[in-house]
């Protein structure tokens, strides 16, 4: 296929205008020795029909969709209203770039402004940026931001922060004078407060923790924030499942200084892990340290309301090596989808979806705990994920369920060696009661 729009005649005319007789002459500035001598070993050009075939064949090697699945762990299957796909696939949203010329980009800019507003409302924070890559790099950016604000070398991370987020934080701070230390969890599945009290000191820049955390439990944000503040450390709350914000108190009202996380749950398909949507919100006082693009409201020469990218003196294209972050583009199109999603399901809808998640997960938890050989691992209140411990090898249970076409849960031992035969289940509004009952029955059978 070719996406060129020049006719043979056009090409001739243009070459004549330039004063060349062959296209090769255009590349005369490239030394001959560097030019390709042979064709690259690339497949033959595919027609549209052949492309469909190729991808159809690749897809047929995926078998996951044939299974009833209950895995979450930072990527959640939620229902996406059709108008999210319908509206976001408009070329006017897909094919512009970063709104460098605001007069030609009011749509994108106003949507970013609306996005910043709903994220601020949900997190209970003063301000939000225009998005970041994903939850993991968002958490890493939050750590760097906390260090810029506090300048103290220690960052405490909850052991129950998403394991991949912890890894990404460690990668990002490799070359920054920050030491990370992990805080244990308690039998409730929350941050072990005693352990935190021992480890936090005046050298701590931030306490970074997730709520609901990786093992499903809702943290006591207020208590952790209060202790953090006592030591002049920032309370950084990571939210990997932001549907929970439809019902749980906003972290900003419980003392959080920075709220960051993953907003894939807001209308973004699982997509085998990306693109997703990192979000970040903070107190107004930290505005100048916030990474990424920010849209702001202003007026045009006729006094009409309009929107622009603003506060760019924080950013790399102005400040170069002294920028708050090296991030350039955000995830504008994913932020658009999140905005359409949130504005569609609305205030009542979000609350209702959150309620369904918590009710269904807790129904499943209760039912599964009646099964002989199954134990609830943590006592803390859960949102839509929970951990069970099995009397039998988890891999055996897993394999048994696979034969019944069920992907039941994520085995946790590879993330937490101490959690032997424990697995993380996720139930959302897409699961029906009969799905849950099927799961319970199959697990019961697997343990008999």
């Amino acid at each position, binding site marked *: 296929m070719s996406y060129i729009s*020049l006719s043979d005649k056009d090409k001739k005319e243009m070459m004549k205008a330039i004063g060349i007789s062959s296209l090769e002459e255009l590349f005369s500035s490239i030394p001959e020795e560097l030019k390709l001598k042979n064709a690259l070993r690339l497949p033959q050009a595919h027609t549209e029909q052949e492309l469909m075939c190729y991808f159809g064949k690749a897809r047929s090697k995926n078998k996951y969709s044939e299974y009833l699945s209950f895995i979450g762990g930072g990527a959640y299957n939620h229902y996406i209203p059709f108008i999210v796909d319908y509206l976001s696939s408009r070329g006017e949203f897909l094919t512009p770039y970063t709104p460098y010329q605001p007069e030609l*980009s009011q749509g994108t800019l106003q949507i970013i*402004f609306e996005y910043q507003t709903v994220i601020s409302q949900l997190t209970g924070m003063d301000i*939000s940026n225009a998005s970041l890559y994903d939850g993991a790099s968002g958490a890493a950016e939050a750590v760097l931001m906390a260090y810029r604000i506090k300048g103290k070398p220690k960052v405490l991370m909850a052991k129950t922060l998403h394991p991949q987020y912890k890894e990404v934080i460690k990668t990002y701070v490799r070359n920054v004078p920050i030491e990370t230390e992990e805080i244990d969890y308690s039998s409730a599945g929350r941050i072990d407060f005693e352990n935190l009290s021992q480890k936090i000191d005046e050298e701590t820049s931030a306490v970074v923790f997730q709520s609901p955390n990786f093992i499903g439990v809702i943290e006591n944000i207020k208590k952790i924030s209060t202790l953090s503040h006592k030591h002049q450390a920032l309370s950084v709350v990571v939210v990997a499942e932001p549907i929970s914000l439809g019902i749980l108190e906003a972290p900003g009202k419980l003392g959080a200084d920075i709220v960051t996380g993953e907003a894939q749950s807001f209308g973004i398909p699982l997509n085998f892990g990306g693109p997703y949507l990192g979000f970040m919100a903070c107190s107004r006082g930290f505005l100048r340290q916030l990474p990424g693009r920010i849209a702001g409201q202003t007026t045009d020469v006729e006094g009409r309301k309009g929107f622009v990218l603003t506060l760019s003196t924080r950013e*790399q294209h102005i400040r170069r090596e002294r920028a708050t972050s090296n991030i350039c583009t955000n995830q504008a199109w994913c932020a658009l989808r999140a905005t359409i999603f949130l504005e569609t399901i609305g205030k009542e809808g979000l609350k209702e979806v959150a309620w369904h998640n918590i009710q269904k997960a807790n129904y499943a938890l209760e039912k599964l705990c009646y099964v002989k050989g199954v134990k609830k691992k943590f006592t803390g209140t859960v949102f839509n994920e929970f951990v069970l411990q099995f009397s039998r090898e988890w891999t055996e249970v897993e394999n048994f369920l696979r034969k019944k076409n069920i992907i039941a849960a994520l085995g946790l031992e590879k993330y937490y060696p101490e959690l032997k035969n424990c697995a993380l289940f996720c139930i959302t509004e897409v699961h029906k009661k009969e799905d849950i009952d099927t799961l319970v029955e199959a697990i019961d059978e697997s343990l008999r």
Partner: protein
Amino acid sequence: MIREPLIFELSAKGKKAFSLQQLDVPSKKEILENIPTRNDIEGFPQVSEVEIVRHFTRLSQTNHCVDIGFYPLGSCTMKYSPKINEKLASSPDFMLSHPLAPQDLIQGNLEILKRTEELLAETTGMDAFTLQPSAGAQGELVGMMLIRASHEEKGNPRKIVLIPDSAHGTNPSSAHICGYQVREIKSNEKGTINVDDLSQNMTEDVAALMITNPNTLGVFEDEIKKIAYIVHAKGGFIYMDGANMNALAGICRPGDMNVDVIHLNLHKTFSTPHGGGGPGAGPVGVKRKLEPFLPIPVIEREGNQYFLDIDRPQSIGRVRSFFGNFAVIVKSLAYILSLGFEGLKEISEIAVLNSNYIRKSLEKDYYLKYESPTLHECVFSDKFQREYGIQNIDIAKRLIDFGLHPPTMSFPLIVHGALMIEPTETESKRDLDLFIGAMKQIAKEAKEDPKILKSAPHISYVRRLDETSAARNPILKWDYQTDKVKKE
């Protein structure tokens, strides 16, 4: 034109655009006992479906985009994004693929990722690729981390990264986050790297040179081999910013220029839509010696089975969750497959033809600081127009009146008042001529009627916006409280 209000201004209790099925399990309030919950999300919107659809449709109509017209933003490669690739990437099977699904059930996805890595390696002449970086800037950061890890292994991470004064702002910023001091290398009168300046600065304290080729002026660094020799001789690495790969695809390969690390922007050269500012993807390619440091997980093949290797002791670690922007990668693979070698070569040839046609057509009307031959983009400036009090911003804003998107402004920094034009290969001669015509008209207006430029744009949805007061007095969200007060 209808002024579209903020959605919050349309919101009212009782409106809804969504309904959820009945809860089919018992509802137990006591679950949330002792947990702080919220009664209300203050100000959160409640609107009807029709209002949502009109809101976003109207807002969309205030955007310029590639599907509407010419978008010659230099360094951004605003080419046409083939529609079939959208369909391919949004198949339900991909959309519902969970990244933590058992690996034997997502073999198709892993095959797609591996295939893309192989084809990018072949195209660039590199040995191995990681597809994980979410965007070009993250690719740069990963690339610099790989370089640092390699130096660290040899016992000394080194201190300095050399960067030409024409580089993208992300380059120094990425090097800085990686713990390096940045030292700027001057450009010579041709607009390329001053090799003497490089030689003098290239010491054993230097970890790498970050180079963009062709550089941001669109000029090929023809001494690249010599440059690489100088840097390698002192044990440094060559990092290439591949943002301008659209000029080289199918013509020559960075790997053959002795580049050690490169990032590509799939949303530039490989046609995936820019999405209003992301998501992109910034894969990083390396030579064999840097492969052990690639971020985890690495996709490996054993017989017919693909698997994710996380047991890589020398790896820099994980740089994002899961495996990169999969849906973006699918589109870029579809693009490479649709072109084949001849098609890939043709994009560079025509991109360079289009750019040179614009350059030739406008060289009498606008000042060209560097006379070196250029490839896929050319950088003019407002020097001639400044005589009449006109700056590049006025030229840019006036272009909007012609229904055209302005070029990149004020970049690269070595050209004062820059207008950086990159037409890409997908544009028709008619569109190029419309742009050239508009630019000539504007050059004429600058002399004869500069006021019309100063007050432009005139016919856009909004007119020139006050960016200074936006930054001085930031309003960054709609405020429920102020709005309530206003209404009362």
